[in-house]
């Protein structure tokens, strides 16, 4: 039935583009400003005398000097040396839901009726955007069963931090803020479920997965729950794409002990219309609007972590919240028990506008279609990989279906050929696909990789992806050197980037590079 796809004779753009500072020619200008009105100059006088003593900059910043076409060309060359989702089969970056971001949405965010809105304008002049925020909140309430949402967190991680802040406020109000200082999470939950509560001052207990099922046992949870438990931060399905069928029992145990339960639903793509936070019994959750809700990832942001809570926690949400009084939308700041601000203003509203547009374009049936196709694509990919690609395995819950992604292992390949996941990853890109995501820590699955073939990839593209992995695996057995020395078709060849551990070796600015090299 499935066929091998002819692989591309691919080479990525290779511009050998200098660092922008090397392109500088003294005197060139990229853009000019309007002349200052004579009358303004005459009224104000000599600006050097106006600037307070010692505050006038003595040495101009050593920025490069380029004309406009050269600046544009430089950055366009860099853009060509970047494999965005729009131009490649971006299945490899699992846990990230690299889905198509509809182009019409970019017209909406570029519309001056959005792009030129100041966040402090009178509400009578922002009724349109407030309406979109309000309606999007209603959509997310329906999708999750939660009672209130805000969009202020600037990403999923900040939403987890905001939830951790509410968790602390809740226990503090109940006089248990000091005592309940532990949170529980799982090893396959995104690392921010450990790090954000820890940043908020909680101790972290991490449950390890059962060897068979891939998720923690009820007994493991029971053994750590106590009157010190503040809450459970959990992802389901976890990074492995395995749905934890005991999640409700876990939530009940934590509730019984007086803790709250917080769901990281960044990976929502397999859940729409199938299962909701409410039925599980979660108290708080967040969605990433730049993942399952189609807002583009933007070279790592800007993005939006939509934070949702049950009624009894809504008073703690970051301020302000959007309200509707039957005739007009408004921002409610009168929230004395709020945790305050998490980010300036109301968050990355551009992502809300796009996510709203996305839901409006597919509706309830479309959302369920998103999840069903993600699950179908993923299990189709898994079946083909496990039956046709040598050296690959999918640890845990063997023989069972998965949700929207799978964490595979190249351990067998490594044992048999010496080629591990780093090398395979580098070689895959020679065939025109993005690097893949290996794993969040801890690296429980050896030689891991985590693809996620969401609903926006065609069967042909999934087949092509399978053929690429098949080919690379075959090369590992027959011609490992070509894999080991990959990439061969990327903008640069292999470069020793073994993680540096000594801060003395860090070079994050051109001036430091020049200094270390003794260059002028």
């Amino acid at each position, binding site marked *: 039935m499935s066929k091998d796809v002819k692989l591309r004779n691919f080479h990525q753009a290779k511009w050998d583009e200098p660092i922008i500072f090397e392109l500088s020619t003294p005197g060139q200008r990229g853009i000019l*400003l309007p002349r200052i009105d004579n009358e303004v100059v005459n*009224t104000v006088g000599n600006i050097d005398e106006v*600037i*307070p003593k*010692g*505050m006038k900059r003595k040495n*101009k910043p050593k920025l490069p*000097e*380029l004309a406009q076409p050269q600046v544009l060309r430089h950055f366009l060359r860099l*853009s060509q*040396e*970047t*494999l965005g*989702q729009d131009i*490649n089969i971006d299945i490899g970056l699992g846990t990230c839901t690299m889905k198509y971001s509809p182009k019409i949405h970019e017209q909406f965010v570029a519309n001056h*009726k959005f792009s030129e809105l*100041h966040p402090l304008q009178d509400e009578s*002049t*922002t009724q*349109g955007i407030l309406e979109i925020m309000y309606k999007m909140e209603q959509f997310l309430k329906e999708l999750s069963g939660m009672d209130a949402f805000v969009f202020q967190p600037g*990403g999923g*991680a900040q939403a987890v931090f905001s939830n951790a*802040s509410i968790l602390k406020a809740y226990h503090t109000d109940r006089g248990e803020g000091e005592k309940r200082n532990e949170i529980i999470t799982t090893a396959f939950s995104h690392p*921010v479920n*450990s*790090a954000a509560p820890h*940043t908020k*001052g909680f101790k*972290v207990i991490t449950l390890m997965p059962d060897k068979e099922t891939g998720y923690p046992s009820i007994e493991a949870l029971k053994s750590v729950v106590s009157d010190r438990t503040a809450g459970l931060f959990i992802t389901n399905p976890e990074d492995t794409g395995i749905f934890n*069928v005991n999640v409700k029992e876990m939530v009940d145990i934590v509730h019984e002990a007086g803790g709250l339960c917080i769901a990281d639903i960044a990976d929502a793509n397999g859940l729409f219309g199938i299962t909701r936070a409410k*039925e599980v019994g979660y108290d708080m959750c967040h969605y990433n609007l730049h993942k399952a809700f189609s807002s*583009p*990832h*933007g*070279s790592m942001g*800007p993005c939006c972590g939509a934070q949702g809570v049950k009624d009894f926690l809504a008073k703690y949400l970051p301020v302000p919240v959007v309200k509707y009084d039957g005739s007009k939308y408004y921002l409610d700041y009168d929230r004395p028990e709020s945790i305050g601000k998490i*980010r300036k*203003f*109301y968050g990355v*509203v*551009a*992502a809300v506008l796009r996510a709203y547009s996305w839901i*409006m374009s*597919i*509706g309830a*049936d*479309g959302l369920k*279609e998103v999840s069903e196709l993600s699950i*179908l694509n993923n299990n*189709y990919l898994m079946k083909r990989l496990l039956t046709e690609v040598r050296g690959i395995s999918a640890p845990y819950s063997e023989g069972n279906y998965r949700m929207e992604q799978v964490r595979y292992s190249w351990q067998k390949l490594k044992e048999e050929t010496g080629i591990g996941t780093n090398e395979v990853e580098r070689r895959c890109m020679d065939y025109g696909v993005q690097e893949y*995501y290996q794993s969040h*820590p801890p690296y429980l699955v050896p030689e891991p990789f985590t693809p996620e073939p969401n609903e*926006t*990839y065609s069967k042909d593209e999934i087949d092509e992806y399978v053929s690429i992995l098949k080919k690379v695996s075959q090369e590992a057995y027959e011609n490992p050197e070509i894999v080991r020395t990959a990439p061969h078709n990327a903008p*640069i060849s292999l*470069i020793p980037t073994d993680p540096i551990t000594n801060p003395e070796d*860090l070079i*994050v600015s*051109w001036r*430091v590079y020049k200094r270390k090299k003794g260059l002028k």
Partner: protein
Amino acid sequence: MEKKKNIVYPYMPNSVESIKKEMMDELGIKNIEELYSYIPEKLRMKGKLNLPEPLLSEIELKEHVEGILSKNISCNEYLSFLGAGCYRHYVPAVCDEVNRRSEFLTAYCGGTYTDHGKCQAIFEFTSLMSELVDMDVVSLATYDGGQATCTSLRMTHRITGRKELLVPSTMNPEILSQLRNYCDFMTITLVDYDPKTGQMDLDDLKRKISEDTAGVFIENPSYLGFIEEHGEEIGKIAHEHGALFVVSADPSSLGILEAPVTYGADITCGDIQCLGMHMGYGSGQSGYIASKDDPKFIMNFPNHFYSLYENEKGEFGFSRSLNQRTSYGSREKAVEYLGTNTGLWAITAAVYLSLMGPEGMYELGENIMYKSQYAVKVLSKVKGVKVLFDKSTNFKEFILNFDDSNKTVEEINKELLNRGIFGGKDLSKEFKQLGQSALYCVTELTKKSDIDRLANELSQILK
């Protein structure tokens, strides 16, 4: 639950029934539900999501969304004097051209090879910022300037082991709120200001600083618009007590005003929305953090560093480095948490700074400096209007006080709105001691005629 038949969704290639069937056949299943039937019944959603009927065609969607957006009135339509943390600067066309490129817009966390161009652009962002603030180490951009301040001040705790922060009582109230939540284990003390100038009260600073002070913080220019002139003394007082000196500096001022490091800052931070980002109702915010090239600072950054590597061919590559600091490297053992921030705005700021160059940044600062002084001069002549802190010099923002009129800021702003003007941010709730005051903002986009018009309209309103 009956699903509508035969909808083929343009964003979902496999929504064609024959393709689904082909894939299901490969898996040996009859319907997709078999793939998730193991999810317990009690967790399954009953019935259909209650959402509006979709607008399946792009034509209908466009009409619908643009219809809602048309209810907004933008700063292209009305004259705006709003600032207070989000600014209407000119966005060069090349900035939009680059950040709307599919390759950058839809890339994510790809690394050294496939996203070489993105990595280089990020390295150039940190390199360009490092010249602007004159410090060697800059991390990838943070969520916003507020987060940059929060992290910078938390770093002072980690470096000094102390738990007290001294911050100006004139500081941005939104950022102060972020800080109170982010550093809730620290004691945050407000330092008074001189009521005539707004400048930090150095005697009060000396009274409040102690051997428990981790960091002393100022904003320059301050949230209320004046240039803080005593940076060097403040830094000295901080250092004498073993505390670190953190300065939030507006990048649009740094072509003409001194970089904080020259007056003693150990960490410089701030918001880069002014460097090529549209306001987007607050979507354009993004933060920067910079420090000296010193391991004790470097190892306390929670954000990604894209370090430069070189191979034997002389090619440069870039890779995330010292990852043990970050939660992607070591979960809760990281110095703080980390997630996806604002990479596209970092790239945009790199484009902006490359276009502007040293002369452009100087002229930007000069332009705003002139406009600010002009506005203060012209508006202070309006009857019923007082400019507060007029003994200090303003950059970009300034306070108009209306206590001498019989109107509140709210009333005045309503009347301005009726005349097509967004008045300044009402300060009367957050800074009660300033009476009926508003924070006004001018940038290089504000014309002399705009300021004259404002003066004229205010004269009529306050008549």
